[in-house]
Every structure is written in C-alpha cells, then in structure tokens.
C-alpha cells in the first residue's frame, strides 16, 4: 500500500498541522529524565562491560523501556521529545543576560524539570546527585579548573560539544540496519585489534534501533485493531512500513522519511538530554532518489515533508533548537544540484512556517532563477521564516584550503547556525571554545584589572612592558596580540580537556554514520581520529569593537596625545564624568562605512587573531577553526566587557559576528558591503555570522517571484558574486526583511499581527518564534535590525 492510496496531499497537510498543534500543547518534558534513570540502572548492570558495549546495551534498554506513542495525527512514528529538556536559554522566558552562565554545568539540566506524576523531587535530586559524580562530571570540572577565573567574566569560554554534527544517513536509509550490520561485521572480522569491540557496540546500537521500530510497529498493530476507516488504513500503513524500515533499505519517499525519523530519534536519544544542533545535510539530495523511485508529485512530497518538519519541533517552544536542513547547491563539477525535492521542501517550509528546523539554502553563480523565485515568498511574507544563505562559490575554495578533498566538497553542509562541516566525515567540535576580544582589549588597557568586578584577570602594565598609559596605548596592538596568544593557549588547553571529558560518553550509534562503520573508532575519540576530518571550533567575538577601538586610540594619540590618561580614566568610570571624551571617541571613524583605515584594521585583526587561534592544536593535533559567529553571545559577552575606546559603554553588546557595531554603519548597505569585502573570509573556515535587517519597502516588484529575483539582484549578487571583488567573497548571510516599527506592533498586538501565535524571526543561525523569545532577546533583534546600515 502506498500513502497516496490513503491520503491526498491536503489531508496529509491537515494532519501535519494538527500534529504540530498537538505537539505545541505539550508543556512538560520528562522522557530525557526517564532515559537517564535507565542509564543509571545500566551503569550498574553492565559495569563489567567495556564502555562502548555498556553504552550500546544501555541504548537497547532505553529503547525497550521508554514510553512510545502513536497519536491520531501521526503519519510517521517517532519523536524527539525524549531527547530534550526545556533548557535552551534564548527561548526560555526566565532567561536574563546577567544570570546566564553557559551550558557547562553537567547537572544544570536537572533544574529544567519539575515534579510531574510519579517523578518526585526526591527522584530528581537523587538522579542529579548520581550524575554529579560520574567520571564525566569530574572530568568536566577539571576542564573548567584549567580555565580558572577567565571564564567567570567570559575572557574566553569553553564547552563540551554534543550534537553539532551532520551524520550521513544515506547508507543506512539505503541498506537498512540489516545491510549495515553485515558491513560492520565484515569490518570487525577483518580487524584484529581493540576496535573489534567497538564494531560490536555499533552493531548492538543498530539493534537498539530495530527494537524501537518493532515497538512502534506493535503499537500501530494494536491501534489498528481498534480503529476504523481511514485511521485503520493509516495505522496499517504505518505498521507495514515500520516492519520494513529501518531494518531494510527504503524503497519510496514514505519509507525513507519513516526510516530517517527513527534513525534521528535514536541518534538524539543516545545523547539525551539536549544534543543541540544536529543537522540533516542536503535533505533534497538525501530524499530525491526515493521520491524519484515512484515519481511522486511535488505536492504529495511536500505534504509528507510537512510531517518531517513537525518532527523537529519539540513541545511548547520547539526546544530542539538549531537543527538545520539545507537545500540547493552545486556539485564538485559545478553543476547545479537543485531537484524537485528542493522545491517540495521549500513548499513544505512555507506552508507550515514552523519555528524549527532551520532552513538553509546553498547558492552559487548558476543557481537557477526558479530557486530565487521560490525564495521570494519567504523573504517578503511578514512573520515568515527566512533561510540562511550560503555561497558555494566561496565555500568550496575555503574548505579546500582547510584540507577537504575535492570529492567531498559538495557534501559540505551546515551544523548548527552556520558552521560548515562535511556530512558524515567531519567532527568539528564547533562550539568548543569562545574568545572575547573585547574583554582582552579591556584588560590590556586597564593593567589586567576587570572594569566590571575589579578582579585581576590579565597582565599589569609592567608585565606588558609599559611604564605609563600613554605607552600602553602607543603599543596597544602588540600588547593586545600577545595577550590574545596567551589567553588562547589557556582556552585551548581547557577546551581540549572538555573534549576529553565528553569523549568518556561514547556514541556508537552516531559513529556508525560518522565513518565509524569503516574505521571502528568512536567519533568522540580523543586519541584516534574516527572521522576523516577533525578540528575544534573557536567562536571569536568583538571584531568590530576592537577595530573601532584601535582607530579611536590612534586618532586620540594623533590629535590629543595629552589626553591618553584621561581616556583611560573615562573608560574606568564608564564615561560618567567625561561625556565629552565619550562623544569624541564615538565620533572617530567606524568599521562599516567604507573608510579605508578602519576597514583595513578590521581585516588585520581578523587575520592576526585567526592565525593565533588556528595555531592552537586540539586533542588530536588538529587546528582550532576560527568561527566569527556570536549566537546571541555578543550580548552575553558584551555584558562582561567594560567601556571600550570606540565609545561603547560598559556592558553594552559587542558587534554581531563580523558586522559593524549596531548604529555605527550609518552610510547604508552599499558602504557596509564594501567594508565587508575587506575581511579575510578565507581565514574563517569555521564560519562567521552576518545579518542584514532589510526594509521591505526597497523592493518594488509586485509578486513574490519577482521580488525573489529583485532580492538576488540587489542583495545576493553584489554580496556573493561581485565581479569587481577579486578576493574570496562572503559566504554567509541571514536577513530579516522587516522594520523595528513592525516588530513593536507585533509585540503590542500579537493577536492582530500573529494570529497563529507564531511570528518567525531569524536570530543568528536559527529562527525562532519571535513571541517565544525572552524580552532581552526580542529587544536585541529589534535593535540589531539596524535599518540605517542597510538602507539603499
């Protein structure tokens, strides 16, 4: 039986929409807690087994015991609800900038669950206590000990990375667990070393997936017996499908999506709770072969994809944030790879307009006009999600320079917000470390004393080789880069320790799809490299603030050298007693206005800092990858930075990604783009962030399709494919096409402007329901639209 024999596209769509409403009505998440309890039991039960075997057997026990359900609107079985807690700060109404301290506490998640049913506070406390004394928790604490006081005010930050990978599901979809187990067994038999046990663990983890599928099949069978009419047919189809996949290879799109969903569920459960930012990769290429097998129409394919999209939304605020799905792009030979599934996925996204999963689109010079036409509706429908845009023509050479083989380039995709990784072959530990250039500059100017707390966090003037503030300012660049070097050393050491900690939690199921089926090595292994590519990420904050500050210092020393101490004093008390100095510094040239001196300074800083960071080695001796993205952390890290010489006041935000500081690029989009052309994107192989808030009134065409073309001509062409730009061109952009006035109206009167309760906005790499956000982040989005900087 085929799906189209049971439902037409409209009926499938209706079910998907009801399923989403049902999911959004769920305001508690306990599955992760139950899974952790099972894990604790298994720690004891399988304590004599090798770690990987214990973990795989535990996964099987979780699959046997976790509650499963199939509701009235399910067309596919499977959920992510048991893998996530109600944790993610940006969509947590209780989030405040001043109270946030990162995701480093391994038991903080136990604060994100309240007693519910027979889950008592006592049970919660007990499990928390158990998890607070695992080898993993101890190892993680050691990592933070290495960092010392530096993380307390975010000079740098480190975290253990879960999620943030792009598994390659294609083989598993094609041959099923059965076929893959055979391959793993062959590799095991050919292996004579300790990896034999790891091959065994991967096989067990695939069997755990089969257990999950069997349980869903039995449940569908039970429910089918009680059902009638279309419901009966739906449940029968589900049962038949679940009996086949993921054990066998899929033979049509329906089976492929069902198989994918259970694979994803198992992968996330293996890391529960909160494996943020797993990404699908090029979903259009993954699913197109299965659609083509039955020549399924775009309309029906889109309707099925709507159910896939709903699967990525967890509970009342879509807590499984930053899971990324990409379409479009070119092949290694330069051919466009857009296919019918690309458009079907876009249709599904547009019609559903859900807070998750994130949509990204790969573009290149020969992207067909039809794709831009299809994107117009996203950019120009108020409150509609908008895709992140990637430039293949830039990313291919950048990744090649990073060491990616020619044959793997077309398989780059985006994990999390904007970090480019090779699907199934690349463990980039993307959010492993975070560096705050603004704070380092503050410490350099102020003799190592924090302007925020008065603590000594850096070197004294004497240690920096200076006898006066004038001397410090005269040598600020050298002092700054020396300090960056030293902090980066400490950062790398503690980040590596965090990776060592998380490597204790082996992930055999995930590893199957990350090269492990061939290598027999865990993706997190810190001694042997299990993936073809490996690195660790470093998110670098404060580029524009430091560039503007260096130029302001130069200007002051040139025009008013006698006021060097006065400036330092003004920074010390946040300009309270010296508003004239504040205005003087604010009036100095700023990045983003096509002013050669300051744009070149930003370039030099990005180059020098990138060279320093990428000279640091991770646990396998691979470089740290520079990522100039600040996923709302420009707010959080700015909160810990005192006043800076660019005139920025204490605790104000830093610049977002590589963008000019808010309000400083007031010459419009043209000059802003020209300034951006100076930046060394080839040094940003870990990614970067940039945002344009665009006034919709600049676009005059009368249809979405024509506006899509207008968007290509006015925004994408000049930015990504500028014939007069001889350097590596920018490769990333996200936009919000709206105005601050419009967003304030939405907040004031959500019933009028967002009657569905959903008004999607882009916020760094992800998109979110604007109405779900905490007030601080809502205000940040409005502020950062910075319409003046993108005016035409």
């Amino acid at each position, binding site marked *: 039986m085929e799906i189209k024999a049971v439902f037409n596209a409209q009926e499938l769509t209706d079910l998907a929409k009801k399923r989403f409403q049902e999911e959004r009505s769920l305001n508690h998440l306990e599955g992760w807690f139950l899974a952790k309890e099972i894990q604790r039991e298994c720690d004891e039960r399988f304590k004599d087994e090798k770690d990987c075997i214990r973990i795989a057997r535990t996964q099987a026990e979780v699959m046997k015991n976790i509650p499963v359900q199939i509701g009235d609107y399910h067309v596919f079985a499977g959920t992510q609800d048991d893998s996530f807690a109600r944790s993610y700060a940006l969509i947590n109404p209780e989030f405040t900038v001043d109270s946030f301290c990162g995701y480093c506490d391994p038991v903080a998640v136990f604060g994100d669950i309240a007693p519910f049913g027979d889950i008592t506070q006592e049970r919660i406390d007990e499990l928390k206590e158990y998890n607070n004394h695992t080898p993993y928790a101890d190892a993680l604490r050691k990592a933070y000990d290495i960092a010392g006081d530096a993380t307390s005010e975010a000079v740098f930050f480190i975290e253990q990375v879960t999620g943030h990978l792009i598994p390659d599901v294609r083989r598993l979809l094609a041959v099923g667990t059965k076929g893959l187990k055979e391959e793993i067994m062959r590799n095991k038999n050919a292996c004579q070393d300790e990896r034999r046990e790891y091959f065994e663990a991967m096989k067990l983890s695939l069997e755990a997936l089969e257990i999950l599928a069997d349980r869903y099949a039995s449940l569908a069978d039970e429910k089918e017996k009680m059902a009638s009419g279309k419901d009966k047919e739906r449940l029968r189809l589900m049962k038949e499908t679940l009996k086949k996949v993921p054990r066998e290879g899929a033979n049509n799109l329906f089976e492929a999506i069902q198989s994918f969903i259970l694979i994803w569920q198992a992968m996330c459960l293996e890391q529960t709770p909160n494996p943020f930012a797993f990404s699908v990769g090029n979903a259009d290429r993954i699913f197109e072969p299965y659609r083509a097998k039955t020549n399924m129409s775009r309309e029906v394919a889109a309707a099925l994809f709507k159910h896939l999209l709903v699967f990525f939304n967890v509970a009342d605020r879509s807590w499984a944030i930053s899971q990324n799905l990409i379409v479009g792009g070119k092949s290694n030979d330069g051919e466009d790879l857009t296919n019918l599934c690309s458009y079907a996925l876009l249709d599904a996204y547009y019609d559903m307009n859900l807070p998750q999963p994130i949509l990204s689109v790969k573009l290149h010079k020969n992207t067909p006009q039809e794709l831009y036409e299809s994107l117009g509706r996203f950019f120009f429908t108020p409150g509609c999600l908008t895709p992140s845009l990637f430039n293949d023509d830039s990313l291919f050479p950048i990744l090649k320079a990073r060491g990616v083989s020619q044959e793997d380039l077309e398989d780059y995709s985006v994990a999390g917000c904007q970090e480019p990784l090779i699907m199934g072959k690349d463990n980039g530990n993307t959010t492993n470390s975070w560096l705050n250039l603004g704070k380092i500059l503050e410490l350099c100017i102020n003799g190592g004393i924090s302007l925020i707390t008065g603590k000594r966090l850096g070197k004294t003037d004497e240690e920096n080789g200076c006898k006066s503030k004038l001397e410090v300012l005269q040598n600020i660049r050298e002092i700054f880069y020396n300090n960056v070097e030293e902090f980066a050393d400490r950062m790398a050491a503690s980040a590596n320790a965090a990776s060592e900690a998380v490597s204790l939690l082996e992930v055999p199921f995930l590893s199957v799809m990350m090269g492990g089926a061939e290598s027999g090595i865990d993706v997190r292994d810190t001694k042997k490299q299990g993936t073809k590519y490996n690195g660790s990420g470093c998110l670098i904050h404060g580029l524009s603030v430091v560039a503007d500050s260096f130029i302001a210092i130069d*200007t002051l020393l040139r025009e008013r050298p006698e006021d060097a101490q006065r400036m330092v004093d003004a920074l010390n008390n946040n300009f309270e007693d010296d508003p004239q100095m504040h*205005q003087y510094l604010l*009036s100095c040239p700023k990045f983003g206005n096509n002013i050669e001196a300051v744009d070149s300074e930003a370039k030099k800083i990005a180059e020098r800092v990138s060279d320093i960071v990428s000279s640091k080695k991770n646990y396998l001796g691979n470089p740290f990858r520079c990522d100039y993205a600040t996923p709302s952390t420009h707010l959080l890290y700015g909160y810990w930075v005192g006043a800076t010489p660019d005139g920025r006041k204490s605790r104000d935000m830093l610049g977002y990604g590589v963008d000019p500081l808010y309000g400083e690029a007031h*010459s*419009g989009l*043209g*000059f802003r783009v020209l300034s951006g052309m100076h930046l060394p994107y080839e040094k940003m192989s870990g990614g970067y962030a940039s945002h344009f808030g665009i006034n919709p009134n600049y676009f005059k065409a009368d249809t979405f399709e024509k506006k899509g073309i207008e968007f290509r*001509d006015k925004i994408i062409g000049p930015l990504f494919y*500028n014939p007069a730009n001889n350097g590596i061109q920018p490769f990333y952009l996200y936009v919000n096409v709206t105005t601050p006035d419009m967003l304030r109206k939405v907040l004031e009167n959500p019933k009028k402007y967002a009657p569905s309760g959903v008004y999607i906005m882009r916020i760094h790499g992800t998109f979110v329901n604007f109405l779900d956000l905490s007030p601080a982040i809502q205000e940040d989005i409005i502020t950062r639209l910075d319409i003046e900087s993108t005016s035409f």
Partner: protein
Amino acid sequence: MTLKIFQKGFNYSQDGRGNRLVYHMQGCNMRCPWCANPEGMKMDGVILTDKEWLRDGLCPKGAVKDGRLDRTECEVCKERACLDPKYRNKGIRLSFEEKPIEEIYEEIISSSPMFYDGGGVTFTGGEATMQFDALKELLIRLKSAGIHTAVETNGSHVRLPELFPYVGQLIMDCKHWNGETHMKYTGVPIDTVLENIRRAALEHGAVDIRIPLIGGVNDSVRDMEEFICLFETMGKAHVTFEILKYHEFGKNKWEECGWRYKMDERAHVTAGQIKQFQKMIVNHGLNYKRS
C-alpha cells in the same frame, strides 16, 4: 580642487539607473521652502545640532546652554573650535566635509563593485553645479575611467551645457512653468532653467525631467496644463518626465539647522492629483517615468 559634500550614500535607481553612489554637494542658489535637504543650501554650510548629544560644554565659548545652541554666538564666532576635529563630538557638526577631488575619485573607483545594474555615481545637492569647475573636472576623470555618471540639477547654471558630454544621465528639476511664481518660491529667475532644459532635450541623449508637485504652488489643473504645453515643446524619445510628490521628510532637518519649516498641511498633494497629472503626460505622448 575640492568639493564640499554634505551627504553621501547608495541608492537603487532613484537618482539615475541601477545602484548608485550619490553625493549631495553643498550650496544651492535656490531657496525652496519645501527643500528636503536644507542643510545643503548655504555654500558655507550650516551648523547642525543633534538634540540627543547636545550638551553644555561642547562649545568652548559656552554657546550651548541647557541643551540648546545659541546661534547668535555662532554668527560672530571666528574660531569655531567646536568643529575642530580635536574636539569631535556628536552634538554639533558642520553640514559638509570638504575633500580633494582626487580623494573623491578614489572613493568612487573603490566603490565601483557596487555599481551593478548599470549603476554609477550621481551628483546632486544642494545644487551640484554650484561647485562647477571641480565638478566638471571630476566628471571628465570619471568618464575616462568608464564610470557611469548622473547629475541632478535645478538647471539654473549658465554653463550647464558644458557638462553634457561628461554626464551619462541628466536629471533636471522643473519646479514651475511661470517665471513670476518660480522667482517667488525659489528666488531664482526661470529663463536660464527653461533654456537649459530645452537645450538638454535637444543635445543630451538621456534627460529625466522631474516636477516636484507641491500643494498651492504648482498643483492646480492649470499648472498641469501649462507644464504639459511646456513639455510638448521638448518631448523626445530620450526625455522622460517624472512627478515627485511633496513630502516632509526634511522637516526635522530644518530644525537641526536652527530654521523654521514654513510648509504646512496644504502642501500635500493627493494620489488623485498625481494620477491625473500622470495621465495627462501619457496622453500627450510624453514618456512618463517612475523611479
């Protein structure tokens, strides 16, 4: 040679074709009370203030008191220390920056990556031709560099035709058809303006004529008919006509300059009037343009 520039930025297809870098040049010989860029009127510039940042102490001579600038003191002030770069601030600034044309030329060349869709550079004002010699020199250099140029002018400069060979697109305002009323509102005789428009229509290959439609000034049915009579004498294939609807976007700027904005609600024109005028232009076989 230098040019005084009071504003610059990109716009798309509003002041010439494609994406353009637009320079607003200081100084205008007309005194239109509806002007959207009053800070560009005086050749010597004007001191602009920003209320948010205007603090006591910004003027070393104490002309800022209680958040207000006493402009009578500015009129007699020779030093103008508040404008010295050494005392940069955000509360007081001179309307323009003066730059050598070499520097402007370099900026234009470095901006050329953004001249997509046939774009280039546009000089407007104020009145661009008030700095005639420097402008001409720059236009000559840009033409040889292959940069598309446009000039937006009120058409009153007697030497305007000298620029024709170096201007890719000529945008000319036609504020009135009647000499007396033109003089009343702009302070400048109409004769040269009309002569230049006629010559441009004859000799220049790409001319856009713009009529700012202002309530009570040039928006009556008779005004429209007279405009049409005038345009019919110059309507060629390469001449377009565009109506610019009155707006009060410049109102705050008049206040920042320390001047009173004299226009009121009566200056607004209706969409119906615009449509009517547009229809008349089209019905007379003239090329109507909307940027």
